[in-house]
């Protein structure tokens, strides 16, 4: 665990000013302008995102990309140079499997665009429903989450997700990985009845799985035939995933089901990714052998059963890490994503190595979603998408995000909630 030096609070007053603005705009902050000069941070603790950490290191980025990371680097003449002694620099965190921007107010139906009707919807594309003007986004961004996988839900095949950066004018300039995969909710072998509070075998399971298998086989045949004849959007939407150029996200938990699903997808030539994976630790060897990554859903959940240990879910990331399974940590939901760093921190509290926890919310998500060429870690040539914090980002005691950059653009960290806070502090200042 990284020790946090909290002494140096004064930083970059210049850059900080916008954050302290007391004006009330009732709008999301304007997307940041392109980087117009090189930026250097000196003597920072740099968490690379690949599981390593570099102490007292300088970093230079220009034109949106990291130029170099080295000690005492020579700064270009026109660079903004900032002393980051005692500060931490992390890659911008990546929230996988989120409905951010797809829904604004859960209970208000007109704001919900995450769930298309029907059971099989691979053709549905979350990207076009992604609302860059969602007031929730800046609240998540201000906690260091700069990229997200906008993911549809519902049905057996929910649709396709896309990777976006969280400071865009519209979905087109926000997208960094278009239609990165198809999301499949694998049928559940057991079903729980809230009325009787019993879990029992889902008798429809074989039928449901057969239906799903059949659909995938039909899609494979359709795609393999060079798409002759009538155009069928649902089958067509599966082609890239079946060919392995996009992911097949398998939302599921049960060990036997996971093994079955992974083999099925692989046989067709697809790239399976387990999402959820509550019981993935039980088949860790299999997942490692088959090189199947897991997106662990929130480990801040109750144990699955009465007999499971009290901290069962908290400890799962550590178990997967120990077994050598590639995994990302995710949190689900939309507004809740601002707690993503704390979910990763919770895993550290229960045995996961700190830098591995960072990796699970930065580089691994980027690798899974296929955007690791540019995002996910702090390396030369990669996008300058990073955060600067006064302390440990995974702990709420110290999660003070002072600066954030997406592709070198310095992001406004203000949000509606901070604004409301200022508005009503003003009320009390006036004694109203």
């Amino acid at each position: 665990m990284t020790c946090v030096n909290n002494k140096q609070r004064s930083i970059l007053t210049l850059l900080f000013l916008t954050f302290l603005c007391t004006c009330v705009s009732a709008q999301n902050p304007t997307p940041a302008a392109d980087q117009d000069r090189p930026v250097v941070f000196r003597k920072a603790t740099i968490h690379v995102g690949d599981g390593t950490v570099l102490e007292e290191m300088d970093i230079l980025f220009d034109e949106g990309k990291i130029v170099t990371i080295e000690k005492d680097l020579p700064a270009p003449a026109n660079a903004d140079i900032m002393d980051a002694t005692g500060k931490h620099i992390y890659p911008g965190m990546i929230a996988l499997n989120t409905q951010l921007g797809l829904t604004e107010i859960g209970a208000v139906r007109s704001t919900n665009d995450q769930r298309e009707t029907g059971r099989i919807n691979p053709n549905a594309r979350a990207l076009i429903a992604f609302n860059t003007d969602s007031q929730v986004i800046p609240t998540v961004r201000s906690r260091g989450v700069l990229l997200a996988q906008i993911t549809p839900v519902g049905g057996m095949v929910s649709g396709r997700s896309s990777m976006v950066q969280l400071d865009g004018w519209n979905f087109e300039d926000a997208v960094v990985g278009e239609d990165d995969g198809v999301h499949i909710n694998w049928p559940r072998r057991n079903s729980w009845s809230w009325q009787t509070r019993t879990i029992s075998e889902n008798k429809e399971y074989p039928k449901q799985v057969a239906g799903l298998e059949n659909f995938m086989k039909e899609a494979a045949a359709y795609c393999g035939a060079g798409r002759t004849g009538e155009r069928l959007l649902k089958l067509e939407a599966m082609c890239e995933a079946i060919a392995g150029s996009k992911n097949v996200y398998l939302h599921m938990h049960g060990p036997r089901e996971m093994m079955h699903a992974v083999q099925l997808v692989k046989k067709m030539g697809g790239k399976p990714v387990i999402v959820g994976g509550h019981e993935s630790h039980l088949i860790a060897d299999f997942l490692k052998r088959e090189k199947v990554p897991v997106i662990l859903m929130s480990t801040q959940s109750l144990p699955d059963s009465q007999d499971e240990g009290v901290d069962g879910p908290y400890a799962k990331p550590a178990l997967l890490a120990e077994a050598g399974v590639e995994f990302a940590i995710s949190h689900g939901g939309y507004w809740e994503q601002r707690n993503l760093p704390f979910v990763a921190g919770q895993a550290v509290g229960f045995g996961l190595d700190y830098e591995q926890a960072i990796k699970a919310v930065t580089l691994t998500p980027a690798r899974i979603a296929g955007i690791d060429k540019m995002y996910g870690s702090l390396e030369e040539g990669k996008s300058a998408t990073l955060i600067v914090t006064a302390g440990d980002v995974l702990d709420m005691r110290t999660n003070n995000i002072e600066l954030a950059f997406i592709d070198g653009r310095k992001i406004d960290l203000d949000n509606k909630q901070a604004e409301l806070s200022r508005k009503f502090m003003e009320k009390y200042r006036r004694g109203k």
Partner: protein
Amino acid sequence: MRRFQQWALLAIMLALCTSALTAQQTYPYNGVYDQRSGHFAFTGATVHVGPDRMVDNATLIIRKGKVVEVTAAGSVPAGAVEVKMDGKHIYPSFVEAYGSYGMPEAKRGGGGWGDPPQTDSKTPGAFSWNQAMRSETEAAAMFKADAKAAKSLRDAGFGTVSTHHQDGISRGSAAVVSLADGKENDLILKRRSAHHLSFSKGSSRQNYPSSRMGTMALLRQAYHDAAWYKKQNGEETNLSIEAWNDLQALPQIFDASGNWQDNLRADMIGDEFGKQYILLGGGDEYQRLQALKESGATFILPLKFPKTYDVADPFAADLINLGQLRHWERAPANMAAVAKAGIPFVITTHGHKKMSDFTAALRKAIKSGADAKVAFAALTTGPAELLGIGDMVGTLEKGKLASFFVTDKDYFTDEATVYQHWVQGKPYVLKDLDVVSLADGYELMIDGKSFKGEVSGKTGSQKMKIIAAGDTTGVEATTSTANGLMTLRFKPEDADGFYRLVGAPTTEGGYAGTGQDPTGKTINWSAKATDGDDAPEKKDKQEKKEEDDKMEFVSRLTYPNIAYGADAGAMKVGKYLIRNATVWTNESEGILENTDVLIDNGKIAAVGKGLSAGGATVIDGEGMHVTAGIIDEHSHIALSSVNEGSQVSSAEVRMNDVIDATDENIYRQLAGGVTTSQLLHGSANPIGGQSALIKLRWGKTPEEMKFAGADGFIKFALGENVKQSNWGDLYRNRYPQTRMGVEQIFESYFSRAKEYGEAMKAGKLVRRDLDLEALLEILNEERFITCHSYQQGEINMLMKVADRHGFRVNTFTHILEGYKVADQMAEHGAAGSTFSDWWAYKYEVNEAIPYNGAIMHKQGVLTGFNSDDAEMARRLNQEAGKAVLFGGVSEEDALKFVTLNPAKMLHIDDRVGSIKAGKDADVVVWNNHPLSIYARAEHTFVDGIEYFNRAKDAEMRKAVREERNALIQKSLDAKKGGAKTQRPSGKKRRTLHCNSLDHMQEKHAH
């Protein structure tokens, strides 16, 4: 060695015997008068007159359906028909105290999924407002003899049933009926034997009550209404209440839905109104013997045991939890445990569809340690006395009904067969007494050839295997002993056809006769009985079997009896010294480094440096932090139901009624440092229910968990939930549907409560109204409000209502817009218990901000963070940390958000909430800074008892795994041994939230 015995042929005689029942006196008679007296003398049997008296070689005389006498080797009186019963056993018929024999099926009263809620009773007439209060129901009036059901009960030994219509909360009166056939006029032995009550609405689809605590409140109100009704003067005619009053002198039998907690709940109501209920058991009494014994109740025990789980598939086996496996192992021994504890009980067939399953269960319970004599009494004299019909049934003493059954062996300890059942002097033949019992084996001589016959199986279904001389393998013979003759048909392996033989008994205990050989030749044959060579071996087997059946448990018994339950010995107060820790006192001393905390006798004994251990268990606090236990102001764990949201006010319901001490979340939250939780009613209606306050005393009973002496609170709610905004289109009718209506509800109810209080004070005849009484307590500042709230307008509104009616709103909970009216809250004196950072899940939280806590705090509002969530409550310390992140509250004050401040809100800060000598030892030892994401509770104490210890928890996990495995292996053995199995179906708790209704599933919105 057993020899076949000859019996008098009774079957024909019995079939022709006319009814021994006295014919209906008032009915005209058709034909010549032929009322015979049914005068019989049963000789030679062992007559079990009652559980305490047995007469060998007895003569039992009955006449006109009643017992005349039982004498040892008595003579047969003139005029009586002698029935020889040599070697048989005769028992008094069993009495079922909890039957539904002859009752019509309860029909669901319409309504169902997709229908709007039903607000009024659908029972026409001058009856109760509530459709489930059916005191006017009279089983005697509904009773209709049912030949098929009567037979199956008689087959299991029952001759008398106290039957009632099992529908509703008050189910009216039971009637005692006999299981003979005939006219109902003769079968009803007692018109009203008991008043039956339950926690189930049955066929009623009326929306109230919709929860367990609502049902309990309805029962309380029923007692008050009944008392008022007696005094009132023609204001109202209510046939249900009149019937209720008439039933009060009878035994009060309560079906609390089948578990020990519900039984304690029922008993609690009984205690409040001076009633000792007789409780229908849940079969899980062994899990809480002490508390159940203290209830003083007699139990009607069902003998329903879980079938063996089919755990052959390891992944399917994972569905079943340890608690289920334990119960599978121990349920058969429940009766023995109840008896041993000295709890009075009787036995019921309730829950068994097939009576043969009941008999099997009864024998299993006896094999599992229950005393046969006690079981006998629990089926005869016990229920007879309970129902006040001891003068009629239960024993075979003079003058009682001639209701008895005949078996070949001891009914309770052997696999006895019931041959006949006489009810009210009327015989029912179940099995031929004539049935021949074959010898263990025979030497056969057939047409000069010698064969050996080996007999196996039970009397009545014995089989014979025929082995040719010199051979080792034989062939099965088709045998019959009908009419006392033996018929044999078999085909030897080397023969071309069958031998077919018929023989009559010989005096030597064998048979001799004639037949045909495979060629069709007529031949002679004979069979001589032999002692089976394998007899000793058989006996060994028998003994071995009995040994196997003897119960040896591989499961542990914990409190509650699930994984991680506490051992009885673990719940003891200890003396502990936590040394050299960082102590967050929450007092003026602030945070003390390198400080010791001494816990003794349930209290914090001292806080200081270098304290002496004096025999205390020392906990090394180096690098550790010590804080007061976390107090969750808003929790719904440890509850069986949350909302009685059917009416606009449910102030009469008490969450104290529905504390669920078996909720594993209690233990999980101890692991998160929580020591006290306020268990709130939900937010489905503006005026909710009375809150419960518990300490997380894991392993104790609901009663023992209550925070004794604390002030009473009540839940109120505002906004979208009470308007049913997010409930769908069916919920458009219940008032209020707008915030405007919410205010008027409060205005109306508080005005009525005031008037009610004045009328009471003036000594008028007022019907006690538990709803208004709770509201009156608020006006009198004897009860305090915790109000679910979000938007500033409604928060403001409720404070104004309170101002107008002269009281203070104690706490606004959730209060996500508290930051907008923090100054007004501070002025009113209302506290704010909020979420650290929740928002966006519904419209009214669209302006919720994580700075809320900090702003309220800075404006002088007593501020706390609560969970409303079983998972998040385990991390409230982290939530407190967010008050530092959002709004810069000092760390010391932030910790108070989840400790001292909620203690103040709940008026218990004199007892808990800080680390101070003299306060309750509700203390947590953390391995890290308590506001950090990395902090883990290592030790959690409540009242000086260490309810959670992380190291011990690790050991327990290992023990849980091992015990599970042992039980799974035992299940597999049982399956292999032929036990009936069931497919695994797991139990999983539903986590309850603010808006959880018993009858519908919520979306996750708070």
